[in-house]
């Protein structure tokens, strides 16, 4: 009895895994087909350059530029030099200030847009992103016309007699922050808008019904529940602000050097690719840490916020 049963059973169990393996292969092929193009693009244009940058950090510049392939950690000791750390610190401060101001300006804007009648929301959102349709360089140049000692603001202020001498507005850290804020504010408003708009309006009503004034409702209900949007907006503004070199160049006049300018100069002026790569690596490491912190915080918040 058992001798006739065993082979059958064996045969049946044999079909199982083979079928499953085939199904798994098929699924894998399907995934590769859909992921393939994007994955290929990322490998060629992100991973390969990143690997090159990483490997350059170990070499040093030759006498007439170029790269001398002798491994050392000299570049990293040089980054630790006060001068370069100072520039990185200044960049973090300016990008941080930009992010904070963007949040303070962006939250009320996003909040108001989310509470507009539905058809006006789209109009308002289009207005928010409208500046993106103009070239970034042109928009930044326009700020020079505004902030110049002979610019619109100074001429208006002297014209009405508010000041005797033109204010020094251009080529200051303030001008850099203003330019960055102007450039990246929409990146703060959009994720905030989507977070606020998604918030169940009944939660605000429930808060009021339980005796909370509007301000208490904001601090206890609206803000905590839109924190993931706040974090996203902050990262969206901080990351490009930190690496930006056009705004400090044009509005900072080379007097306010940010890490982006430093890296650009190492590659294009000093022709020290290995050191430029090392500085770039430091920025990448900073941003990766930041993104990891953001992902962690968002996951924690979202875990508790599932309705």
């Amino acid at each position, binding site marked *: 009895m058992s001798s006739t049963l065993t082979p059958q059973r064996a045969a049946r169990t044999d079909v199982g895994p083979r079928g499953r393996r085939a199904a798994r292969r098929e699924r894998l092929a399907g995934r590769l087909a859909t992921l393939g193009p994007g994955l290929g693009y990322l490998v060629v244009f992100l991973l390969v350059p990143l690997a090159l940058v990483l490997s350059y950090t170990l070499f040093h510049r030759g006498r007439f530029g170029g790269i001398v392939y002798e491994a050392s950690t000299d570049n990293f000791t040089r980054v630790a030099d006060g001068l370069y750390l100072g520039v990185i610190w200044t960049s973090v401060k300016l990008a941080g200030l930009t992010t904070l101001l963007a949040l303070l300006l962006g939250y009320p804007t996003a909040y108001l847009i989310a509470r507009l009648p539905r058809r006006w929301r789209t109009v308002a959102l289009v207005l928010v992103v409208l500046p993106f349709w103009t070239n970034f360089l042109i928009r930044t140049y326009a700020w020079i016309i505004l902030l110049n000692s002979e610019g619109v603001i100074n001429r208006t202020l002297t014209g009405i007699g508010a000041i005797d001498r033109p204010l020094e507005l251009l080529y200051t850290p303030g001008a850099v922050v203003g330019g960055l804020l102007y450039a990246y504010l929409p990146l703060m408003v959009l994720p905030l808008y989507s977070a606020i708009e998604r918030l169940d309006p009944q939660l605000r*009503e*429930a808060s009021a019904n339980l*005796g909370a004034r509007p301000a*208490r409702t904001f601090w206890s209900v609206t803000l*905590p529940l839109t924190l993931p949007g706040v974090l996203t907006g902050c990262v969206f503004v901080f990351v490009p602000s930190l690496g930006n070199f056009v705004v400090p160049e044009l509005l900072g006049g080379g007097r306010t050097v940010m890490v982006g300018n430093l890296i650009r100069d190492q590659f294009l002026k000093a022709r020290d690719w290995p050191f430029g790569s090392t500085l770039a690596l430091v920025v990448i490491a900073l941003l990766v840490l930041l993104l990891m912190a953001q992902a962690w915080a968002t996951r924690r918040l979202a875990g*508790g*916020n*599932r309705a």
Partner: protein
Amino acid sequence: MSEHRGAPTGEPLVSIQSVSRRFGDVQALEQVSLEIRQGEFFALLGPSGCGKTTLLRILAGFEHPDSGSVTLDGADLLAMAPHRRPVNLMFQSYALFPHMNVAKNIAYGLEREGVPRREIRERVDEVLATVGLTGLARRRPHQLSGGQRQRVALARAIVKRPRLLLLDEPLSALDKKVRAEMQLELKRLQHEVGITFVVVTHDQEEAMSLADRIAVMSEGRVRQIDAPVPLYERPADLFVADFIGANNLITGVVTTDGLRVPDVGVLPCPAAPDAVGATATLAVRPERVRLGADGGLVGVVRDVTFFGGTTRVAVDVTGLDRPLLATVAGAAAVGLGDKTRVDWSGADAVLLDRA
């Protein structure tokens, strides 16, 4: 009315006078007037879009009427901001704060009143015991079942000891078994805490089983306000007769002998000497219709539906556009296609819309 402890004292708590509200082309409320008595369980019943939720939101302060007045204990309720009203609402979606645990959700309203921390803890524990959720204080809303969330929403609303508790379709999200259980519990709770409850529902069974009095609404108007039994037995108009329970509605002309319906005959109905000659609609409940009796109308059985305790029989009668429904106890003695007689006594029928 007075056989239970939570029976209304008769004192009006809330007085709604000619309240109207328009949203664009839609008249959500039109000249609504009603009084809610101290300690009663009041239901606003009607199909969706009848204005009952708008009325509830006006009481909570989330909507403002275009005209009319609302007073609570004689004070103008409409002049108070939502967060100052002694009125709590249990939302249909529960609207629990997802980032706070159960205890925090319940404590939220007490914290806003500035109740001392120790007292908050005591009252939260107490109300958790009342709704049977002791031990779940540290859970987040997403870790609870639908029934448990509903209890948290209820606890959060009653812990403030409001003068008036509003419940928006409180049981609609629950499955049938939990719903029956919660129905009993709501009623028990209302007697226990002695708060005036106003429940909004489209479910007539829910309204009938919970409420002391029911206001039936349709298209922004109040059609009838009555206790469940009179509402069922003496509907004030056609809408109520049709909306509450099943009813046989037959239109004809009032005579001294009954209601004359062309091609059918004279049907038994209560005497209405002042309405003789007028057109009216007769309403008779299926359970009042007798099958196989002598006299009455002759018809053919079209459908037999067995519900266990009762059986509903639909009988086609020549001359009537709708089959007559009769409910009989147990299994029916007639089968599909049988010829049978249907009859009812005039006292069991109601004459409506006598023009």
